[in-house]
């Protein structure tokens, strides 16, 4: 578990380090996700060395974003002023996204 955590935080740090030095417009954690995938593919690290920590983190992923959800209370009035256009735009866009991705794979899958 300790080794797995060290790998996860190591790749996070590596991602942050790269964004810090190269000032690219992508978050360090997303870069870390990409890098750990590449490292696993190239067999630089082994799955069983990171799996204990990654499984636990994914299991509780939804818990971790609760504080941001609670933060919505601070902006409640701003969002409430625009609730109608926001709802229309977000729902319409979500339905379009659902349909486009579903129809492409349904027509072309083997």
């Amino acid at each position, binding site marked *: 578990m300790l080794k797995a955590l060290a790998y996860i935080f190591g790749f996070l740090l590596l991602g942050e380090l790269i964004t810090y030095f190269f000032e690219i417009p992508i978050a360090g954690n997303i870069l870390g996700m990409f890098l750990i995938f590449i490292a696993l593919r190239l067999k630089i690290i082994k799955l069983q060395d990171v799996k204990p920590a990654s499984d636990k983190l994914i299991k509780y992923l939804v818990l971790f*974003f609760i504080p941001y959800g609670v933060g919505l209370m601070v902006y409640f009035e701003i969002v409430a002023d625009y609730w109608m256009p926001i709802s229309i735009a977000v729902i319409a866009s979500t339905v379009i996204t659902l349909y486009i991705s579903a129809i492409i794979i349904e027509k072309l899958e083997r």
Partner: protein
Amino acid sequence: MQEFFQLPVFGVFISIIAFAGGRQIRQKFDYVLLNPVLLAILFIISFLLIFNIDFEDYNRGGKFISFFLGPSVVALGVFFYEKYEEVKQNLKVFLLSVAVGGISGIVTVIIFLMLLKVPGFIIESLAAKSVTTPIAIEITKLAGGIPEITAGIVIAVGIFGNAFGPFILKKLGVKSKIAIGTALGTAAHGIGTARAFEESKLAGVYSGLAMCVNGIITALLTPYLLALFLGNFT
């Protein structure tokens, strides 16, 4: 008493308890709007309002919880590697479908919000509405939007996809479980993926992978798409 609530342990404790409570309620009553995260957020907000506690005070502890979003995103890379084999035979079509679906999601929400004359900072906060919350939050921070607005709407999008996604897709004539899974992961991230797993195991795997892939695509493209439409990206 206010000083007591400023202790970080208060924010940590209430977050964990509210989430555990939300899960218990969901287990007892299997109804989609009783999403554990939604219940936890509503409970905490009510508690803070009733006892007149500032969000900033709650967040002294909340920060310790949300800190783990960073390593969780890295963990998604491990998940992706593990499940990658299962989509191999459809890989190109899968990637095409997630990319086109994901990009149309960003573009349409930006255009619709612009047409409805919603202020720029809200558009910046909502461009990444379809991707998993931790990634969406990072995209919003880079774009100059407000991460808390992002989190709220992203969770709402997930619940919408979870509750209505398969129904809408079936009405529109989509039959393949793989297609339903891919669409749910692309449009409604982890909360949609939970529903995809209820459709079938394979749908769930495709959904989880679609969530990861769309997270990367959206993270890479959103800054440029926002600049293209809003023209104020620096």
